[in-house]
């Protein structure tokens, strides 16, 4: 699988290029990450823990977990449905639909947030009705969840579609001819074929959902202890000159990044070894 190393490159050029790559990664990626932890622990363990159990910080963690759990559930389900219908059926406008799935990636998150304000804000299309009926969408957790679902929508579908396209429908057709029903085909044939890619998509979706700033910032309203997610709480603390606390909360996101990276590497080994199949 690994390509043969290029041997005719002079040793010097090779050395310089490798050194450059190491330097860039060290300077732009590793150093900031290390710095987050250095700042977080700059006043010792106790200050670090105190920053994390502070009520507003805890509330931010809680909200982030809630929003992420809801977004993952929604996007895993929708991603599966989208990928299934787009790869197992033929219909007009299919390629347009595949293109549209990527829309959340190409739209600025701020615009994504504003769309929800325009729809559900007090001056929006549904605003009056929502207020009259006591529903709170914008500036509350449902709005934050909607914005997060929007920006993380493509992750699962994008991982599944190319794989399922490549796999085609032969195995499913075989299963159907042998008398399997729809659910049985899905759970016994399709799901085993795509499970690692599915996990991979869920993983990326999770990382982005927890870390999303722009879209969430627009719909949050920034009410302390209520509508701030972890990234918003980091900004607030930073702006209140509580730099150590800000980095302590930020270190949670950094940890998440590290865990994601590890899990991603493991999954990639899995995907690579079985060639996306099992």
């Amino acid at each position: 699988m690994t390509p043969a190393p290029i041997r005719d490159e002079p040793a010097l050029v090779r050395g310089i290029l490798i050194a450059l790559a190491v330097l860039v990664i060290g300077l732009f990626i590793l150093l900031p990450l290390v710095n987050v932890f250095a700042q977080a622990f700059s006043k010792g363990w106790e200050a670090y823990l105190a920053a994390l159990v502070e009520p507003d910080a805890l509330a931010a963690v809680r909200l982030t977990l809630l929003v992420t759990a809801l977004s993952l559930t929604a996007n895993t389900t929708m991603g599966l449905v989208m990928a299934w219908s787009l790869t197992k059926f033929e219909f007009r406008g299919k390629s347009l639909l595949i293109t549209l799935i990527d829309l959340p990636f190409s739209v600025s998150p701020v615009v994504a947030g504003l769309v929800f304000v325009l729809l559900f804000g007090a001056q929006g299309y549904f605003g009056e009705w929502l207020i009259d009926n006591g529903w709170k969408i914008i500036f509350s957790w449902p709005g934050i969840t909607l914005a997060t679902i929007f920006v993380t929508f493509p992750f699962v579908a994008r991982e599944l579609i190319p794989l399922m396209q490549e796999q085609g429908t032969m195995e499913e057709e075989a299963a159907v001819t042998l008398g399997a029903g729809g659910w049985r085909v899905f759970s016994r044939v399709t799901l085993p074929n795509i499970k690692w890619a599915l996990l991979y998509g869920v993983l990326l979706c999770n990382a982005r959902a927890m870390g999303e700033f722009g879209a969430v910032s627009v719909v949050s309203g920034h009410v302390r202890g209520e509508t701030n997610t972890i990234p918003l709480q980091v900004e607030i603390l930073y702006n209140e000159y509580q730099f150590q606390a800000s980095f302590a909360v930020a270190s949670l996101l950094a940890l998440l990044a590290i865990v994601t990276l590890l899990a991603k590497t493991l999954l990639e080994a899995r995907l690579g070894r079985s060639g996306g199949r099992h």
Partner: protein
Amino acid sequence: MSFPFKPVAKAALFAAFVAALAAPIALAPAARAADVTLLNVSYDPTRELYAQFNKLFAARYKADTGKSVEIKTSHGGSGKQARSVIDGLDADVVTLALAYDIDAIADRGFLAQDWQKRLPDNASPYTSTIVFLVRKGNPKGIKDWDDLAKPGVQVITPNPKTSGGARWNYLAAWAYALKTYGSEEKAKEFVGELYRHVPVLDTGARGSTVTFTERGVGDVLLAWENEAFLSKKEFGDDRFDIVVPSLSILAEPPVAVVDKNVARKGTGEAAEAYLKLLYSKEGQKLAAENFYRPRDPDVAKDYEKVFPKVDLVTIDDPAFGGWRKAQQTHFADGGVFDQIYSN
């Protein structure tokens, strides 16, 4: 019924899934204890003031009524905050940087048009002004407004479209130029030149302060007086100096109850009490401690050494003609700010 994962992986996945769903519930707060919850939507630099004032109010309200109260706060650029309230952020009270932002909320029917007459002193329990924060020793020799437009000087100020403080900054510069150079043409030229010295426009006053103090960008920060004092307090006297210009503007940050929201939530009485306490001796003292100029003459006297004497123009000066007119002339789409900033 089979499942496409091996048993161990299956168990692990199931556990992870349950944990993900259960975590928010497990971490959920105990049922809210407070009898009343108020939301104060405020502008950027009042974070420290209201953090302290909320505690004071909770104690007073409990003593007076026997009811517990929890006050939530949200801070950001004043214009942006007003926009959020208009879009449905459930504020019981708004404590913003300037009257126009509350006018904008009143225009959408959230509170009465005459809101500014319902509380004393133009509904502004404290005032402030605009000063310059420079690096220690004032290496660029900045003494007054015309020094800001000199070659090689970088000025930090937020975006007047979203920030209230930025609008006071802009109007103070305008008032100075009008007085010094004598015509609107010249004033426009001067303010235009000043903004060509601004490398970055943050959305709120606090963003600009962090840009100047923490990130070390720029030679001078146009700042709320309270924000300048706070920076010196946070970072130490040896980092920054405050320069008071020859002329500045009387900034009146107003407060109001948002009628429509408190009517729906039944919090009108607590919201009224909250704002009234700002005018009490205790409230005024707390404002002064946080470097806002108190209205109460007695408290003002106690703190007169803190606040430098400055020649102050007001927003009702004929040069501006009140906030509605100033907003229309300078900050509306296509207004003077757009003209000078796009050039």
